[in-house]
């Protein structure tokens, strides 16, 4: 229920926003329906001229006198016939204009929603993106938008223009014969109720059929993914039986639905013809009692008018049946829009950043967690220093990087960047100045060159190659067939994890940033390349560098090593200092030496390696 309300709230908002466009479309399609009801009158006019029955035709007088200029009945018929064709031409032009306008509105709604959604989602928090179901999100951005825009640009107008065509037809029929008009309306409630009932039923069944087909698709997908398993266990027959069973289920559900469909459509056609018969029969009765009051031209026009509203009335059932679907789609869109944009709570300051960092009694926990990950965390880093942060998985060392780039916000304490409280600084400003290289970086499906130059498209080529060299990637890139023009992710151009990391490093080096953070972003590299990059950076950069790692070899050369345990700093110092004092760092370092010895022991001793 709540869901429906939210859905309608969104639809209401949309209607309010596009109200003028919607009103125009409704007006146009109502007008179009209304003009159609004159078509049977032209025909009636022709017949009344031919039979000379003298009956009244509800066409404008000027038009009738125009036709009368023909003089002879034949010429009048000719004039009226071509008058009808011209009338239809005008209607055709109007229909084209209406069609184009309706599509324009539809596309406008769609492009607006797409852009808004794109921007909104891109501004949602880091935490949101880490947990989101991307497939579902894409569905919302594509098919849910389609459902909503269809409703706004088409279905609403169709729904309301049904009343227009009904009203106009009744009016025209009434001008011909009131009695016949009432009789001819009997079909309306019948067609409407049956179609509403049917389309609601279909919707329910459809959900089940889709579910059944999804199961079938899962079987195919799993079969293809596990083709080795299927073959290795010689279970081909079993797979076919499984598939057969689900296929039959799907087929039977579909056939059951179609069986109902056949009754619905059969009843529809049957009742339509019966309506014609009823109208004719009543006309006969009237004719019998009051000879000469019903003309053949009347019957012809009324039958055509009846035919014009039966279909829209039946369609009304379908549209109303679809409203449920629309409200679900609208709900799904509103749900995304209701999630808070991370830039809503943003700092305003844009201070110059030199690279001094200070954590003062910082406490941090994840939103859904109960325990704090960082407890009273304190550390001071001076501009230009290279600092290694080492600790176990889950010790909170990566969180430091996310806090510094304001991807996560701390709950208590304060973080100062050159003495300015981090939360007061504009998020984008922070990120422009503090470069964070993620462990699993994403490369865009563009060329390697464009990927490196992504923050500054107009940068000189030399600069791009320079940063690639700094990241030890230039050589690799030149080894590719297309060099810097290699498109990432294209067939055959898959990059290894280490290559991706290095491109990500190069990309971050493009702009001079006062602070660089490597969040395990050297993890996929061998120790040699790792060292090469770190030395190169040290030589060329004056930036403050934070190297977050679990590899002691990566930490060793740092100016300062920070060891994190249980959410707080347990040790700080240089390698030389820490290697001497008891603690986690010494333990780790000692192990390194022991490893070599142990290996030799294993080789010489026994086969036990574990």
């Amino acid at each position: 229920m709540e869901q429906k309300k939210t859905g309608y709230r969104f639809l209401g908002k949309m209607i309010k926003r596009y109200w003028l466009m919607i009103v125009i479309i409704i007006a146009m399609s109502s007008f179009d329906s209304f003009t159609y009801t004159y078509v049977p009158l032209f025909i009636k006019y022709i017949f009344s001229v031919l039979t000379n029955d003298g009956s009244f035709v509800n066409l404008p007088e000027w038009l009738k006198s125009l036709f009368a200029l023909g003089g002879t009945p034949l010429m009048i018929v000719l004039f009226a016939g071509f008058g009808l064709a011209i009338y239809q031409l005008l209607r055709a032009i109007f229909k084209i204009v209406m069609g184009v306008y309706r599509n324009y509105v539809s596309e406008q709604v769609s492009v607006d929603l797409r852009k808004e959604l794109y921007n909104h989602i891109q501004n949602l928090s880091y935490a949101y993106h880490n947990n989101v179901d991307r497939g579902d999100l894409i569905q919302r951005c594509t098919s849910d938008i389609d459902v909503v825009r269809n409703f706004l640009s088409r279905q609403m107008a169709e729904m309301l223009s049904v009343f227009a065509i009904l009203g106009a037809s009744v009016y025209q029929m009434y001008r011909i014969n009131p009695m016949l008009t009432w009789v001819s309306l009997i079909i309306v409630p019948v067609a409407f109720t049956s179609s509403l009932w049917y389309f609601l039923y279909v919707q329910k069944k459809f959900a089940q059929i889709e579910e059944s087909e999804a199961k079938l698709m899962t079987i195919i997908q799993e079969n293809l993914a596990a083709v080795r398993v299927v073959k290795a266990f010689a279970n081909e027959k079993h797979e076919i039986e499984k598939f057969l069973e689900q296929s039959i289920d799907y087929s039977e559900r579909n056939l059951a639905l179609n069986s109902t469909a056949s009754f619905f459509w059969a009843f529809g056609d049957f009742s339509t013809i019966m309506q014609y018969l009823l109208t004719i029969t009543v006309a006969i009765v009237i004719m019998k009692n009051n000879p000469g009051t019903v003309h053949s031209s009347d019957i012809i026009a009324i039958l055509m008018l009846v035919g014009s509203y039966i279909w829209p009335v039946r369609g009304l059932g379908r549209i109303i049946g679809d409203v449920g679907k629309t409200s679900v789609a609208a709900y799904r869109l509103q749900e995304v829009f209701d999630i808070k944009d991370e830039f809503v709570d943003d700092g305003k300051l844009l201070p110059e950043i030199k690279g001094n960092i200070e954590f003062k009694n910082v406490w941090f926990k994840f939103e859904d967690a109960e325990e704090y990950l960082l407890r009273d965390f304190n550390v001071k880093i001076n501009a230009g220093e290279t600092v290694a942060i080492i600790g176990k998985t889950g010790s909170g060392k990566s969180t430091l990087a996310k806090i510094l780039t304001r991807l996560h916000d701390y709950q208590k304490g304060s973080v100062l960047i050159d003495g300015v409280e981090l939360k007061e600084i504009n998020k984008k400003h922070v990120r422009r100045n503090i470069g964070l290289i993620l462990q699993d970086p994403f490369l865009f499906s563009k060329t390697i060159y464009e990927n490196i130059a992504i923050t500054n498209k107009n940068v000189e080529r030399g600069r791009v190659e320079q940063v690639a060299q700094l990241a030890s990637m230039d050589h690799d890139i030149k080894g590719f067939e297309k060099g810097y023009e290699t498109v990432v992710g294209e067939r055959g151009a898959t990059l290894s994890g280490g290559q991706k990391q290095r491109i990500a490093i190069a990309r971050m080096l493009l702009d001079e940033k006062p602070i660089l953070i490597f969040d395990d972003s050297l993890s996929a590299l061998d120790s040699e390349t790792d060292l090469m990059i770190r030395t190169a950076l040290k030589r060329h950069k004056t930036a403050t560098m934070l190297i977050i790692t679990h590899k002691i070899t990566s930490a060793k050369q740092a100016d300062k090593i920070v060891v994190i345990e249980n959410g707080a700093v347990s040790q700080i110092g240089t390698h030389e200092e820490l290697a001497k004092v008891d603690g986690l760092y010494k333990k780790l370092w000692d192990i390194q030496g022991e490893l070599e010895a142990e290996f030799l022991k294993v080789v010489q001793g026994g086969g036990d390696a574990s």
Partner: protein
Amino acid sequence: MMEDQELYSAEHFDLETWKRILKIIVKDKKSLVLMLLAVIVMTCIDIGYPLLNKYALETFFSETPNFDSVPFFIILYSLIALSMGVSVWAFIRAAAKVEERTTFEIRMQAFKNLQQLSFSYFDNTPTGWVMARMTSDARRLANIISWGLVDFLWGFLLMIGILIISFFINWRLALIMTALLPIFIVIAILYRKKILKEHREVRKINSHITASYNESFMAANTTKTLVLEDDNAQEFNDLAEKYKRRAIRAAFFSSLFWPTILFLGYIGVAIVTYVGGKMVLNDPLGILFTTGTLYLFVDYAIKFFDPVMIVARVLTDLQQAQASAERVISLIETPSDIVDTPEVVEKYGTLFEHKKENWEPIEGAITFDNVSFRYKNTDNNVLTNFNLEIKAGQMVAFVGETGSGKSTIVNLISRFYEPTEGRILIDGKDYRERSISWLHANLGYVLQTPQLFSTTIKENIRYGKLDATDEEVIAAAKLANAHNFILEQENGYDTYIGEGGNKLSTGQKQLISFARAVIANPRILVLDEATSSIDTENEKTILEAMQTVLKGRTSLVVAHRLSTIVNADKIVVLRNGVVVEEGTHRELLNAKGYYFELYRNQFMQELEQKLIQDI
């Protein structure tokens, strides 16, 4: 997928394709015939009831009405309404049946063929391609064979019927309508082609937009760290606006279509009224041509362009469906390049019907006799004149870098591929002299990434031996060290594990796949990098499981983690498809060669990582 569809797009109607596809998929001839009959009846009624209206106009509403036949008229009209209902009912049922049956047959036959296709096919065919054949192509074909055929027949018969009746009543008017016919059809087809082309363009941009969304979501965190929000938004805006322009352009052409046809149709109506009117006026006594007749003509003329449009639509749909038909045929008729000879099938049975009574028991000795192999569509051999002897019950490990040929060797042993040259002997006999199923029924297989099915744990284990009892399942799970964690699950063995088993950790999935291999009790067991995706926590459990599982079988282990293979009877070290070293772990270490270096590096790395976790 889009590009693939373009690739097959056939320009001309090819009868041969349709003959083949009809032979493949039309199994339910009865429904097809019923469907066509019902459509014929329906069309007759569509043509017929205006005749009744004509009769009514002439008899009851003329200047000298005659009401004698009213009861007869009402009865006849009701009967027409009733038979209309019945024929609509019958044709929808029959067409739905044909449609369902067609989808069913396409999927079933494609699926069946997929089961017997060899690995080389799956190497070159993306899953998405296969899925598209089973979904959109299957649907499109089923649709054209059922509803498309119905529409075409209805439209065609109505057209012909109207013309024939018109000729009988008045040939001159009929001629006018006939003259309009080709004009309509040509316009309709040209329009539809243009519209289809426009829409294809629109769809192409649309798929870019979807891709752009996808990329944006995947890159969300990178975007934040690089502050690319505005650039991305700009790029997306450009794309969305481009889409809008293209879509409105396409909509313009679509909007043109119906109004144009409507107008042309009414020109026809105008001509008919004029010519017909003239006849009415020339025949004041209403002997040959009455107003009723004229009404009939006007009614027919208004109705006439509907079937013409439908026929034109089906004709253009047919062209698209032909591309679908070609793709479906290619999926259903692709032959497997690994098949049993007729003699072997005769004795051992097919993939689907095993003749187990003739199967020899298998010992598990494997010999590579001068085997050369290269993957399809490649130029270089992965293996050249490769020889290897594996005794029954031995554990042999294959070590080497990616691309060294170690996985190829186990794939060849599993007969997922066959040697390009040379022979592989099992128990001294070329394995091609026995059936694929014979080998596979005696083969156990554990992969690097465990592939499970979206059913219960129990059913997943049972997959190794379909007729296993619950007790056997539990026994296998115990052997594979999986029993304990299974009992911890919500519903124990009956826990539903989600699509691809995504409710379990990789380690847990791997334990289940071990249990699945154990329950099959195979003579030959292949572990293809089975331990490399396991975290350290589960490693011990898995290594223990491995020891039990391997006992007493010929086992072939492709290992990335060398610590798992120290107990192997033989370690084969490969480099570029050539055996560079061979021996036990100890022998190889003493040799201080390539294996020694590999092992040293890995040992150090593994230990370091483990230590930092343990501290």
